[in-house]
């Protein structure tokens, strides 16, 4: 019961809702880190996914390596990137960059694989019909394949986003901002209220991201 009251006390303390270490700021950092890396990952993965999905070229190679890529563990990945970024920039290279790079690297494969599968999964008869109507390849992609592949794209972006939100949390271990800071600091200072408050915030964020994309997908299927 102590944990519950400690957590509630921590979460409802007005001083935790203002300032540079306040919840809105940390949430903003978390969302900014996640948003930037998702934007980069999407910009890289969707065009490639469309290309291989539409042409069928390199499909096996790309999908197999992307599947392997997905098994990369996030913490170790940040650890591998860190020595390189810190060699380039001794200040930020030890803080935000390794996490950002790892987040992009982890978000590309799910988006890529799902885009490819979505595009390649469009009924070939439809594509042939579109061609027979005189559509050019570009139009086939834009007007037929892409709209039909949207639910698949959404689920790829969803997997990527959930992974990215989790990795942003881990970034706190390496001195980047975000809600993970409450976990790292709470554990270090043995402050159960802060630790558990952080758990509530991080879990709520991850689950709302997931739920948001699920709802979006439902909307698309209607």
């Amino acid at each position, binding site marked *: 019961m102590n944990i519950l009251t400690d957590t509630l006390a921590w979460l409802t303390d007005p001083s935790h809702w203002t300032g540079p270490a306040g919840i809105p700021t940390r949430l903003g950092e978390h969302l900014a880190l996640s948003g930037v890396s998702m934007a980069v990952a999407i910009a890289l993965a969707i065009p490639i996914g469309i290309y291989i999905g539409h042409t069928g070229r390199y499909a096996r190679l790309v999908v197999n390596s992307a599947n392997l890529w997905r*098994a990369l563990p*996030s913490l170790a990945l940040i650890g591998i990137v860190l*020595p390189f970024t*810190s060699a380039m920039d001794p200040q930020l290279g030890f803080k935000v960059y390794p996490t950002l790079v790892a987040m992009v690297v982890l978000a590309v494969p799910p988006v890529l694989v799902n885009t490819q599968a979505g595009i390649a999964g469009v009924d070939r008869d439809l594509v042939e019909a579109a061609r027979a109507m005189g559509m050019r390849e570009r139009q086939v992609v834009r007007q037929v394949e892409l709209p039909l592949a949207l639910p698949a794209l959404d689920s790829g972006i969803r*997997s990527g986003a959930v992974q990215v939100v989790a990795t942003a949390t881990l970034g706190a271990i390496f001195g980047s901002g975000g809600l993970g800071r409450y976990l790292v600091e709470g554990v270090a200072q043995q402050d159960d209220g802060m630790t558990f408050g952080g758990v509530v915030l991080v879990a709520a964020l991850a689950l709302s991201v997931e739920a948001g994309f699920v709802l979006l997908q439902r909307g698309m299927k209607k």
Partner: protein
Amino acid sequence: MIDWAWVGDHLDDLAWRTLQHFLFAAIAVAVGFVLSLGFSIWSLRRPRLRAALVTASGVLYTIPSLALFAALIPVTGLSIVTAEVPLILYTLLIFMRNILAGLDAVAPDVLEAADAMGYSGRARLLRVELPLALPLVIGGVRLASVSTIGLVTVSGILGDRFGGLGFFIFEGYRHSFPTEILFGALPSIALAILVDLALVALQRRLTPWAAAQPAGGRIGPAGAS
């Protein structure tokens, strides 16, 4: 960039942390497998229970690992239980999806034939359904092992007694010492690859009739992070 003298001085530590890493992962995968097998069999012909269990394990899977480790500290302290429970919970979704998919894929004709031959429900499950589901089940073991080996590093948040090779990532960061970080991160990935290769070999042996399935094919996001 790499300080080889440090590596030479710490070979013992590296070996011991590798062993710790392997053991932490092995315990979680074994316990997770037994639990999931139980849940899968229990819920196989109870659609509502099955949906509830899969949803619950999916929700747990979505929660970032750092939060799940931290969540248990106020409850079970800085102990092996706190290190193992999240690892076990993350395997549940992977195992249940694979075990249930394997059991679902058994052809109705096969089940009817087994029934006609007089198999009881339990004997049919043990001697017909589970053996046929084996390729997907082992696929689940591969995926769960690789993902768990990745996650063991995060348990380093619980202090120096935990984390396996992840210990070096945490300590290396505290000391701003890239060599140590790399020698935590790279061997942990190598361990995952080795274990996966060993499981592929086992898979070929146990189910020579099924071509080895690529890891990562059965589940959306590969590992919790």
